[in-house]
């Protein structure tokens, strides 16, 4: 059973999208790189429309003769772009039921997986903190992937950097990595985690999911005891106008630090607040950062 966002119309719209990679990966353009799979053979898998820049030797003239359209052959190695989707199911993602951060993250992972699978790329689904990293390929694998995602019970304690390192090790070939988290952790942890992904020469995209209460905490005159959902650290605070302003400043500062790092590491970054419509995230925000294209 797919989540509510995944209506037939939504899926149809997703089919029109493609995961965009800004780099050429090994095997993507035949003849440009020595194939690593020597001796294994190139297995024809499918046709695709000719695009400028494609090697003309891959044009299937037989199809052209039949259809007067240029199609190139697609080979399995060429299609074996793995999209690592690392999703953060830690407690911070489910601390607030009204924010629905986990649901948004999960739906985003599902949407990206669907797009990836539809374009015949493989998805390595890596829920952080969970042992199994499953690999999915082909459109038919979507439901299985969706079921895996749905079965994940968030709220686990995890060490972000170590889990990302583990997930990165599952990737055999360079490709793309999409990390979905709230990134509400010390910068050093984020840096370590992403560095392990960078070491795999992956094209990385970071999607930060934040809840409404995190970007606009409610204020009052009373004292509050704030409890960290993951570390159980307790902080007593007076949330008023002044302290809220300072909080927002500090949050922005944290996010800015992350963005600077991402920028320096050529990691595309997107921040999404769950109060916005999900469609907006998929069809507007993701294309803006170049993660997907129509």
């Amino acid at each position: 059973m797919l989540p509510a966002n995944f209506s037939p119309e939504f899926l149809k719209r997703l089919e029109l999208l493609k995961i965009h990679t800004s780099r050429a990966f090994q095997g993507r353009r035949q003849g440009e790189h020595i194939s690593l799979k020597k001796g294994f053979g190139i297995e024809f898998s499918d046709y695709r429309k000719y695009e400028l820049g494609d090697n003309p030797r891959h044009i299937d003239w037989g199809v052209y003769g039949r259809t007067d359209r240029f199609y190139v052959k697609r080979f399995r190695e060429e299609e074996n772009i793995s999209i690592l989707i690392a999703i953060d199911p830690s407690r911070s993602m489910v601390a607030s039921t009204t924010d629905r951060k986990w649901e948004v993250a999960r739906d985003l992972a599902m949407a990206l997986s669907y797009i990836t699978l539809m374009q015949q790329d493989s998805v390595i689904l890596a829920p952080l903190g969970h042992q199994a990293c499953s690999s999915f390929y082909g459109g038919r694998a979507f439901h299985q992937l969706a079921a895996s995602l749905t079965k994940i019970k968030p709220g686990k304690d995890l060490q972000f950097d170590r889990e990302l390192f583990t997930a990165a090790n599952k990737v055999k070939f360079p490709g793309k990595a999409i990390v979905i988290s709230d990134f509400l952790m010390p910068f050093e942890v984020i840096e370590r985690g992403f560095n392990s992904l960078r070491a795999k020469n992956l094209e990385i995209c970071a999607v930060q999911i934040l809840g409404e209460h995190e970007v606009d905490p409610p204020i009052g005159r009373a004292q509050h005891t704030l409890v960290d959902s993951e570390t159980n650290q307790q902080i007593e605070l007076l949330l008023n106008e002044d302290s809220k302003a300072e909080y927002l400043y500090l949050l922005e500062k944290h996010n800015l630090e992350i963005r600077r790092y991402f920028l320096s590491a050529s990691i595309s970054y997107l921040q999404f607040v769950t109060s916005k419509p999900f469609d907006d995230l998929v069809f507007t925000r993701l294309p803006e950062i170049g993660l997907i294209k129509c």
Partner: protein
Amino acid sequence: MLSSIGLTYPWMLILAPLCAAFLLYVYLKRGQGKRLIISSTLIFSQLKNTASARRRINLPWRLLVELLVFTLLAFAAAGVFRVGAGERVAILIDNSFSLNARPQLDKQKSLLDLSRESARKYLQSLPNDAEVAIYITSPRLIQLSKSWISPSSANLFIDQIEVAPAGANIESELAQLARKSELRRIYIVSDQSPALKELPKDDRIKFSTVGGEKQIENFSIGDIALEGNSLTPENVVLSANILSHAKTQKSLSIVASFLSTAGSSLSILSTQGLTIEPGNSKKISFKNLPDATLYKIELKENDGILLDNSAWIAPTTLKRRILFVTDSPDNNLGLEKIGLLDFKIINSQAYSPKLIEDGTPIIFDSNSPAELPPSNSLFINPPDNNAFYSSRNVSRNSQVTDWVEAHPILTYLNLAALKMQALKPLGVPSWANSLINTSDGPAVVAGEFNRHRYAAVGFQIFPYEGGENRLVSILSLNLLKWLVDSSLNNGYLPPYSTLKLEPTTSSVHSLDDKNFSREPIQKGQVTFSRPGAYALNDSTRPTRMVAVNFFSSQESNTLEPGKYNLSTLATKLEEPQSPHSWTKLLAEVVLIILILDLIISTLSTIRQRSTKWNLT
């Protein structure tokens, strides 16, 4: 201010800081505010050090209220009181007549002197900050010191105490004092001792009995009287009742003396001897009395109490005024023969109820007012149209048929022999009775209405003829006696009697041969506080003598002073609070604060319900 506050249980004050510390802990704990589980405290942990978000200790007003409440309760528990007040002590001194007794006949020291010594000794045992009130028992419970005084000042009041010619109702007075919860101690000194069959449960009371170690013998005069009929003065006898409060037979010498009308000092009439058995009473009489305004009987005996060895009697003591309303032109009503009464004669036109506002008895002779007078009244031969006794036609030669035997108006009368020349039979009002009935109807009617006595006689009893018409005269005297409502023959007043004086009375002085003093006249009356003979000096009339006696066999009985029963104080009163304790006040203040807090909290809660919001 602080030095004037004391604490009964100072160690209880530790509750105040303990409660305050506990309250602060609770509020600080409570002050942590609402618990919110958030994604991460990463950002907030940086925030907590900033001034704006730093936790503030905003202690709500409620904390202050609760701190105040606990502090007040701690002080209440510690028994805060005003220092310098000390405990309140009442000293009740029996100054009844029996305290005149002398344990040693050769000395003047009386039981009252011993009582004073006992009281002073008790005062010395009290702490300096004790507050004392001195009470006497007689003639009633009186607080001599109008305010609380120190033990040293109380001695002055004790010195001023005198014996009163009265008894003492110690039980009742003790009960009155015991009801005063502010008293910590009650000390009673008396010649009477408590009946200790049941010990009082009120342990505030301590008693001291004086004179009990030695039995004091005493003889007293129990009564004095002029017996006989004033119609035959030569047969009047001066008599006295002598009481023995001794253990052995005794021979006594009694002296009778008199004060002649013109003389200013007593002259001895005669002396008689009397032997009296122990515990008995005996009557002695003196005959052939000279004409006198005052008689005195004196026991010549050096006994326990000397003051009860003398008695006076003044024949004209009770010359009551009576208003006589008559239109008779003949002033010869014979009223002067009735020497015991002072008649004021007016005509019916001059009569007004205002004349008898002081309760003067009134006689209407052949007339009657429109309304019943507000005073004892006698209607002689009331007119036909009178409003009270409907009368019939005059009848002649009426015969007495029956009468009411035991009525005081009819005492000493041989009514069968009563002859009435002209009788106007009377109607009998519903509130009256016919005392003498005749063949023609009621002749004498009497009754009480609105607490006044009214009598009517259907025939003429004036002019008063004395011995010449003995029957009617006796009837007249009986009527007058019943009208005046006092003993015409007692001849003396009890102590503390108040006598209304004529406006022309210039002075009143005691004729005591030991003590010549002037009694104070206040607002036209004088109160005789001591037994004795008194002269009322008036420039317009001869000096009147007034005799005042105190007779009490109980007070004169020095052998058996009596006991007072403390079991009437069986119920122990609740623990008396120090009058200066603020415990009750503090508790009341706390209660008010808690009630206000409850009201305010309830209102706040009702208001908050409508604006609640959920964070998570």
